[in-house]
């Protein structure tokens, strides 16, 4: 592996930013300040970070209902995201989208998506554009273990194989779709094998290990850029919170999350690895921790200070005439 110091710092910063963004939202939601309902990405940070690390703004991602991590990893403005989640003016979507619809196409971020399975067909479309530009860029479809039972996702996979487009399907297997375990909802029990059935290489990877995800992504990129078509990565991961905020999670064994917070915390594991292999001075990580907390504080303060969108915004950004 050949991650530069800058890349390592940046990877950690992305993961830490996601973590603190979500931890802070967890608190703010409990305080009742945030409208709607929100799905937190805590626990899965290494996936977004590892997949997006090698991408530029000319690469695309299509995201899910649990999209904050993908947005941050793909370079969306954190304050703009926070304002969006608060439903305020100055939000990335002017407050019209909300948590489940954050997008920034200028960054190659094609949108979170509140329809499970909505994103992968879109990602394949962007991959057609990449193919026609010579397979230098790629398009990533994020999805969960539950999402991959939606017919649209299978269609997208087959179409990507047929058209040999540089699409990377990332099925984040966090064990649950809402209140249902993956061993129930995926009949075969094996998401990656299903992708192989569609005719593309697929691998499972430790989704709490940034380095493992990053390496898998390197293999995926090499495959896609060679013009050989799509690739699947199935990161095995977990979510530290409920499906949405307020979920009592009685489908999970007592202590499951506590254990996973010990063993599957990508930040801890990154720090351990960095320390063991002396990749960076730990002080660098500490400095990032401090900077990130300040950034999140500032984002929340900016969101709170931002006004709600004026009623006049209701009928803009859409063709309207009647």
């Amino acid at each position, binding site marked *: 592996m050949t991650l530069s110091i800058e890349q390592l710092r940046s990877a950690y910063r992305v993961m830490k930013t996601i973590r603190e963004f979500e931890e802070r939202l967890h608190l703010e939601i409990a305080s009742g300040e945030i409208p709607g309902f929100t799905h937190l990405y805590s626990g899965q940070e290494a996936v977004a970070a590892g997949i997006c690390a090698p991408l530029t703004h000319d690469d695309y991602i299509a995201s899910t209902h649990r999209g904050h991590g993908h947005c941050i990893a793909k370079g969306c403005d954190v304050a703009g995201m926070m304002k969006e989640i608060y439903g305020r003016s100055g939000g990335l979507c002017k407050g019209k989208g909300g948590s489940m619809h954050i997008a920034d196409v200028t960054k190659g971020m094609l949108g979170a998506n509140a329809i499970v399975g909505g994103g992968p067909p879109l990602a394949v479309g962007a991959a057609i554009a990449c193919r026609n530009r010579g397979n230098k860029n790629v398009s990533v479809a994020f999805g969960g273990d539950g999402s991959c039972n939606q017919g649209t996702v299978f269609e997208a996979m087959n179409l990507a194989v047929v058209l040999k487009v540089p699409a990377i399907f990332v099925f984040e297997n966090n064990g649950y779709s809402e209140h249902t375990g993956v061993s129930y909802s995926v009949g075969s029990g094996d998401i990656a094998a299903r992708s192989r059935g569609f005719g593309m290489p697929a691998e499972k990877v430790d989704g709490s290990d940034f380095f493992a995800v990053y390496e898998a992504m390197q293999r995926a990129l090499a495959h896609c850029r060679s013009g050989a078509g799509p690739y699947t990565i199935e990161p095995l991961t977990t979510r530290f919170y409920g499906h949405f905020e307020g979920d009592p999670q009685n489908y999970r064994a007592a202590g499951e999350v506590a254990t996973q917070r010990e063993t599957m915390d990508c930040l801890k594991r990154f720090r351990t690895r960095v320390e063991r292999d002396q990749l960076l001075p730990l002080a660098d990580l500490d400095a990032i921790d401090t900077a990130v907390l300040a950034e999140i504080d500032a984002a929340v303060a900016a969101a709170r200070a931002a006004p709600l969108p004026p009623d006049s915004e209701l009928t803009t950004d*859409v063709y309207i005439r009647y």
Partner: protein
Amino acid sequence: MPVITMRDAINQALHQEMERDPRVIVLGEDVSGGAGGSSGQREAAGGIFGLTKGLHPKYGDARVIDTPISESAIIGAAGGAALAGLRPVAEIMFADFVGVCMDQIYNQIAKFRYMFGGRTTCPVVIRAAMGAGMNMGAQHSQTIYNFMTAVPGLKVVIPTNPYDAKGLLIQAIRDDDPVMYFEHKALYPRKGEVPVEAYTIPFGEASMLREGEDVTVVAIGRMAVFAEKALDAVAKDGISCDLIDPRTTSPLDEETILESVENTGRLVIVDESPPRCSVAHDIAAIVASKGFKSLRAPIQIVTAPHTPVPFAPSLERAYVPGPAKIEAAIRAVLK
């Protein structure tokens, strides 16, 4: 009579019909919940809004079926099970999701009876939570009952209170035609008197929520609740209105609407959907063609704007027609 929420009224109807008729099954995502979970606890959910609570413990996996996130398979399976003699009640978590299973609804189950020459029926009920008002964004807040009202072969039910919710759901389950049953999320906690025993409310019979002289107000779904507030407001100025809740938009009780307009000569229609090809426009057209002679003023139509549902609380408030807009329309129609 016990006073219960609309949520409990719907749950009660499901319990009573499953008890009465072993052919009734329930299927959908997390209608029980907990399958494959590490705690081993089933019925971790009982429906994401709690509507199917208590069914799985009583009727088990055979009749209360948790599914993967595969709405086409859910609705198709409901249709096939119905052809094979069962009476499925399928849940689409949010009505907005009909987009991923529309074919099974509109080309398959809705058409079988006619396409097959009347030799079979397809008694499926599809329950779906709908509506704006809780900042769920553009893909979790739509009403979309106009799409379904447009489809020949489908019946469309929109209850606005616990009593109607129970009686209409039991009717839907016993009905031999496929039925779309829309539950407004904001009305789940609404309370009202509901008889303990099972009863049915026939489709195509509007409910006259208020009687008056000056204006006919037709209000769909949650709009009926807001219309009551508007009626209270104008009552202070001595304006009295008929307030009609169609309860089912297909079949639609045209007679009640037309008769009322005959008396009042003035019509206000209130609908949470965007205007184009809406149920509001549909009813307006029916009156403009069949009740034209009664009309003494332009029909006032109150709908959401022709936009997706915005997320921001300020914008969503401006989006959903509220009592003030309804009141303004009532005053306008009297001008």
